[in-house]
């Protein structure tokens, strides 16, 4: 996918200095807008609020740093990580490969907003809500910043 290819090459470079305002890997307005919970009709089919399933936070770390730090944190908490191409990580509860109680699977994506700011989006595919909450709270506390 378009954005991911650019984010992937950003990851390889992993240097903040290369990131300039208006650079190719920078998110466009519609990519940001589409993250809105209010554009998500999954609420018709899910008991849980969208806000409990899709989380966003901003961070000053570079895309590359963010992805490796997220990987480090979740692995410490006992999760398995499958890397996708570009700025994406699929995180799965290590001990339960099936959708059973206590299992959890979510996707992490990192986007560039500006030269010094990234947005991280976490989307739960299925699993334990309180475990998920624990995880994203830790991730946003450790890695996030809410203002530029």
């Amino acid at each position, binding site marked *: 996918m378009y954005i991911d290819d650019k984010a992937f090459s950003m990851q390889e470079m992993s240097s903040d200095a290369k990131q300039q305002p208006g650079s190719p890997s*920078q998110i466009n*307005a519609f990519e940001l807008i589409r993250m809105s919970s*209010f554009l998500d009709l999954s609420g018709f089919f899910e008991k849980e609020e969208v806000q409990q399933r899709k989380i966003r936070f901003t961070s000053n770390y570079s895309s590359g740093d963010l992805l490796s730090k997220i990987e480090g944190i979740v692995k410490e908490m006992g999760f398995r990580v499958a890397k996708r191409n570009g700025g994406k990580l699929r995180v799965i509860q290590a001990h339960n490969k099936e959708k059973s109680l206590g299992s959890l699977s979510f996707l992490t994506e990192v986007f560039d*907003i500006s030269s010094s700011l990234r947005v991280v989006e976490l989307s739960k595919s299925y699993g334990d809500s309180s475990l998920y909450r624990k995880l994203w709270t830790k991730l946003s506390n450790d890695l996030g910043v809410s203002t*530029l």
Partner: protein
Amino acid sequence: MGCFSSTARKQFPGTEDPLVLASQTAFSVSEVEALFELFKSISSSVVDDGLISKEEFQLALFKNRKKENLFANRIFELFDVKGKGVIDFGDFVRSLSVFHPNAPQEDKINFSFKLYDLDGTGFIERQEVKQMLIALLCESDMKLADETIEIILDKTFSEADINQDGKIDKEEWQNFVTHNPSLMKIMNLPYLRDITTTFPSFVFNSKVDDIAT
């Protein structure tokens, strides 16, 4: 015609025939019947009148009937095909059909264009995009400097607004989306593939299915 039609029509006169709806949408007849179960639960949550009001729409999506928002308002407007201020079953099925993974890409692109064209002028203006961006930032508790917002808008419009007239027309949107396919993520609801399992309708409809095939 099967039990569905007579029950539906008795309860809510004017409810469209599932065969007709199936023939005009991405859904099969049994999927339309399953959608009716979903429709019933949404449309009866505040007032049991066979129609989905704005409040009921918000309650179903956001588990909160008071949660208003410019995107939610726009989506409701688009679902309210006849502009009556309520969504009937036909509107519901036809609108959801666009979100089916098998629905034509063209329909998805058209819907998303109308969605972002907040005031329905036929163009997505820069001011509208800015408004939506700010709404997203508020919602996410994210703060960006004005300058950063302008840079994001500049970048977006330099890519999307080919004739540089400060607004995005339908053709430019089509082109933009083709180059940024991830933008169409919001136009897909994989849940719609499993609708008959999620909302089983306890109606014996084998006769109807035979006619449908």
